C-alpha cells in the first residue's frame, strides 16, 4: 500500500510538472504573439487584406469671365504591364475558350494605343533584359476613357491601369499664352497655371479598405487616412470668344506682313479688366511641343518690353495739360530738326519745312520736335513722376509670371538726349500692358485703375478669395484727360491712317507709334515695332485696344497695325453693344 501511494504521488508530481511546463510554454507563446509581435502581425494580416489607394483631388479650373472652361482636369489612364507575367492566356469568347498568345495580345493593345505589336513586345523584352523579375513597364501614358475601356475589354491578365489626372485645354490656343501649361507630371510651368498655382493646386488623399479573396471590398472597411482637397477655380476677366477673334485677326495680319510677333490688348476702361490679351504666335497648351520657340510659349504682352514710340506722346501731352502749362490750342513752331540748349538732337521721322502746329497738330503730325517743345515745359522730375503714376517702370498689378517691369531710369540718370527722347517714347521701355494702361487712365477721366486679369479664386463653397484691389488713382485731372482724348480724336480723324482705321458710326481716339527695336546689345536692329493704341466710343470711352506688331518686314509702318485696330475695335464695340456716338467730335485746330 505504501509503495502504491508513493508511485501515485510521483505520478501526480510528474503530471503537474509537465502541465506547468506546457502552460508556461503556452504563456510564453501567447505573450510573444499578443504582446511582443502584436503590431507586426496585425499589420501583416491587414496588409494581406487591405488595399491602399490614392484619392485624387482635382486641380481647379481656369475659367473665362462667362464661366467657359479654359483649363480643366480630366481623368486619363496609364496602361502598364507586368513583363514577368506576360504569357499566353485563355480568353472566354462566345465560341468557347481561345488561347491568346503574347504576340496576339500585344498586337491588340498596340492597335488600340497607336503602337505596333512589335513595339510592345520590345517593351516587354527590354524590361525583362534589365530585370528578370520586372513587374512594371509603361505601355502608354495618359490615354482617354475610350482607349482605356477598349484595352480593359481585352481582359489581358498582365495589363494594368493607373489613374493619371491630366490637364486639358478645351479651347486650345485661345488665350493659351495667358493660361500657360503644366508638365506631364502635373507641375505648373507657365502662365496663370503657374501664377495662380496656390489657388489651383489640389491635395491628394489616401483611402484604405479591406478586400475579400474575391476582390470585393469588405463592408464598413473603408478608412480615409487623409482627405483629398480640390483646388479652387481661377476666374479670369478674359472673354474666350473675343480672345479667339482677336488672335485670329492678329495672326492673319501678322502673317500677311511677315511680323516676328505681335500682341493685342483689349481693356475695359471703367474697370481696368483685360477682356482679351492676344499673342502671336499662339501656343496651344494641349500641344506645347508644337510651338518650337520657347519664347513663343509665354505672353509677350506681359513679358516683352519695347520702346513704345509715338503712342507715348499721349502721356506727355496729358502731363503738360494737367500741369496747366499748355492747352490743346497752344502754338509752337515745329522744325524738322530741333537742337535744344542742352545739346540734344531731336529729328522728325521725315524732312519737312517749319510747321506752325498746335499741341493737337503736334499729335496729328506726330512731330518729335513739336512734342519736345511742349515736353520741356515740365521739369525732368515732374515728367518722371507722371510716368511712374501712369504705371511705368514697374510690373502691372496682374503679377503675371516673368512679367517685365519695363525700363525707366531715374530722372537724375537721364542724359541730355534721353531727357528729350523720353518725351516721345524712346529711352524707356514699356510692355503692351503698360501702354494699354496709359490709355485706360486717359480714357477714364484721368483715373488709372489697377490692371486686372483675374477676378479671384473661387473655392468649392462658392466664395471668392484673392479678389484684387480695384481702387483707382487720379493721375491727371479729368479736364486734362478729356482734352487729351479730344486731341486723340483729331488724330484718328486727320492723321495719315484715317482711312485705314475708320469705324463708321463711332467716335474713336487713337494714336500710332513706330519705334526702333533694341537688339539687346545697346543698339537697334533694322526692324521696327509698329503700334496703335486707342479707345472708343470717344464720347464715353468703354474699351481700350492696344496693338503691337514687331518687325513686320513686308509693311514696316503703323499701316500694318491699323487694320488690326480697326477690326478688333469694331468687333469689341459690336460684341458689347456700345451705343454709336451721337454728337460729332469737337473740332480742334491742328495748325495756325
Amino acid at each position, binding site marked *: 500500500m505504501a509503495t502504491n501511494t508513493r508511485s501515485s504521488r510521483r505520478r501526480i508530481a510528474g503530471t503537474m510538472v509537465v502541465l506547468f511546463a506546457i502552460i508556461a510554454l503556452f504563456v510564453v507563446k501567447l505573450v510573444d504573439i499578443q504582446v511582443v509581435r502584436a503590431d507586426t502581425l496585425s499589420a501583416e494580416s491587414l496588409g494581406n487584406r487591405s488595399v491602399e489607394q490614392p484619392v485624387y483631388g482635382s486641380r481647379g479650373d481656369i475659367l473665362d469671365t462667362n464661366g467657359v*472652361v479654359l483649363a*480643366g482636369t*480630366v*481623368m486619363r489612364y496609364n496602361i502598364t504591364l507586368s513583363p514577368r507575367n506576360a504569357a499566353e492566356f485563355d480568353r472566354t469568347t462566345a465560341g468557347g475558350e481561345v488561347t491568346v498568345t503574347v504576340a496576339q495580345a500585344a498586337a491588340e493593345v498596340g492597335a488600340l494605343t497607336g503602337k505596333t505589336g512589335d513595339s510592345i513586345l520590345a517593351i516587354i523584352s527590354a524590361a525583362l533584359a534589365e530585370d528578370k523579375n520586372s513587374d512594371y513597364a509603361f505601355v502608354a501614358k495618359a490615354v*482617354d*476613357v*475610350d482607349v482605356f*475601356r477598349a484595352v480593359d475589354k481585352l481582359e489581358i491578365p498582365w495589363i494594368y491601369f493607373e489613374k493619371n489626372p491630366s490637364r*486639358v*485645354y*478645351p*479651347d*486650345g*490656343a*485661345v488665350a493659351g499664352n495667358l493660361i500657360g501649361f503644366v508638365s506631364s507630371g502635373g507641375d505648373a510651368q507657365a502662365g496663370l497655371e503657374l501664377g495662380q498655382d496656390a489657388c489651383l493646386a489640389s491635395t491628394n488623399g489616401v483611402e484604405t479598405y479591406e478586400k475579400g479573396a474575391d476582390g*470585393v*471590398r*469588405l*463592408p464598413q472597411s473603408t478608412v480615409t487616412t487623409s482627405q483629398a482637397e480640390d483646388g479652387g477655380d481661377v476666374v479670369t476677366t478674359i472673354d*474666350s*470668344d473675343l480672345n*479667339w*477673334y482677336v*488672335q*485670329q*485677326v492678329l*495672326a*492673319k495680319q501678322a*502673317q500677311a506682313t511677315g511680323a516676328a510677333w505681335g500682341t493685342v490688348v483689349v481693356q475695359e476702361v471703367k474697370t481696368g479688366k483685360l477682356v482679351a490679351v492676344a499673342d502671336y504666335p*499662339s501656343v*496651344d497648351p*494641349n*500641344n506645347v511641343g*508644337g510651338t518650337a520657340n520657347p519664347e513663343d510659349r509665354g505672353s509677350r504682352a506681359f513679358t516683352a518690353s519695347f520702346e513704345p514710340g509715338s503712342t507715348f506722346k499721349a502721356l506727355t501731352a496729358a502731363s503738360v495739360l494737367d500741369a496747366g502749362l499748355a492747352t490743346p490750342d497752344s502754338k509752337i513752331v515745329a522744325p524738322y530738326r530741333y537742337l535744344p540748349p542742352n545739346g540734344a538732337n531731336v529729328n522728325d521721322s521725315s524732312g519737312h519745312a517749319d510747321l506752325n502746329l498746335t499741341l493737337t497738330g503736334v499729335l496729328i503730325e506726330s512731330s518729335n520736335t513739336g512734342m519736345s517743345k511742349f515736353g520741356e515745359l515740365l521739369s525732368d522730375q515732374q515728367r518722371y513722376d507722371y510716368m511712374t503714376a501712369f504705371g511705368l517702370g514697374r510690373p502691372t498689378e496682374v503679377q503675371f509670371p516673368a512679367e517685365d517691369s519695363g525700363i525707366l531710369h531715374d530722372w537724375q540718370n537721364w542724359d541730355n538726349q534721353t531727357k528729350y527722347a523720353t518725351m516721345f517714347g524712346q529711352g524707356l521701355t514699356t510692355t503692351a500692358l503698360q501702354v494699354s494702361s496709359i490709355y485706360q487712365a486717359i480714357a477714364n477721366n484721368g483715373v488709372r485703375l489697377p490692371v486686372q486679369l483675374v477676378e479671384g479664386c473661387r473655392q468649392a463653397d462658392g466664395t471668392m478669395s484673392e479678389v484684387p484691389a480695384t481702387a483707382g488713382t487720379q493721375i491727371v485731372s479729368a479736364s486734362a484727360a478729356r482734352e487729351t482724348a479730344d486731341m486723340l480724336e483729331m488724330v484718328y480723324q486727320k492723321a495719315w491712317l484715317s482711312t485705314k482705321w475708320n*469705324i*463708321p*458710326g*463711332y467716335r474713336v481716339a487713337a494714336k500710332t507709334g513706330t519705334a526702333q527695336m533694341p537688339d539687346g546689345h545697346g543698339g537697334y536692329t533694322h526692324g521696327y515695332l509698329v503700334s496703335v493704341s486707342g479707345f472708343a466710343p470717344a464720347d464715353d470711352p468703354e474699351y481700350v485696344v492696344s496693338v503691337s506688331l514687331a518687325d513686320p518686314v513686308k509693311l514696316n509702318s503703323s499701316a500694318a497695325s491699323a487694320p488690326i485696330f480697326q*477690326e478688333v475695335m*469694331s*468687333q469689341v*464695340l*459690336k460684341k458689347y453693344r*456700345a*451705343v*454709336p456716338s451721337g454728337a460729332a467730335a469737337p473740332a480742334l485746330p491742328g495748325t495756325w
Partner: protein
Amino acid sequence: MSDNLARVLRPNWDNTPASVPAHDTRHIEIVATRDQRQARPRIVYALSAVAGMATIVVIQLLLSVGISQGAYEVSRLEASQVELGRTAESVTEDLVRISSPQSLAANAEALGMVSNSNPVYLRLSDGAVLGAPASASGSQGGAASLVPNALLAGVPLVTQLPQGSGQGASVGGSTADTSARTAAVTPKTAPNGIPTPATR
C-alpha cells in the same frame, strides 16, 4: 441577553396553552427536495439560453449574409457609377471640345456663314440706322484656323458628317420622327418674303 435593560417577563395570567393541537385532518404531501426544486428551472433556463443563442447565431448569420450580399450589390453599383461617371466625363469633354470657338467658327463657315464685325444698329423708336451698313468683307481667316487647337484633330465638320448621322439622329429620336417634327415647325413664308416663325 447581554444588555443591561430591566425586563419584566409577562406572566402567563390565564394559563392558556400556547398552541392548541386541534384534531384537524393532517394534510400530507411529498415535498420536493431542495435539489429537485432547483433542478427543474435549470433545464428551462438552459434550453431557453441555448435557443436564444441559436437564434442569435442564425440572425447574425442571416445578417452577415445580407450585408455581404449588400456589399456585392454596392460594389456592383459603385462599379456602374464609376463607369457612368466616365461616360459622362468623356461625353462632356467631346461637347466642350466642339463648343470651342475654333470648332464653332469652322463649322459656321462650312455652312456658308460669314462674319461681319461692322457694327450697325436699328433704333426701334424711330427706325434710325446707327452706323454705316456694309457687306461683310469675307471669311474670317478661312477654314484654316490660325488659332490652333490640338483637341480638334480628326473631328469632322458638320458638313463632312455622313448623311443620316446628323443632329436629329444623335439626339436620340428616330429619323422619321425628327423629320416630322421639323416639318411641323418650318416657318411659314409670308407674302412679303420675310419668314415668320410659328410661335404660340
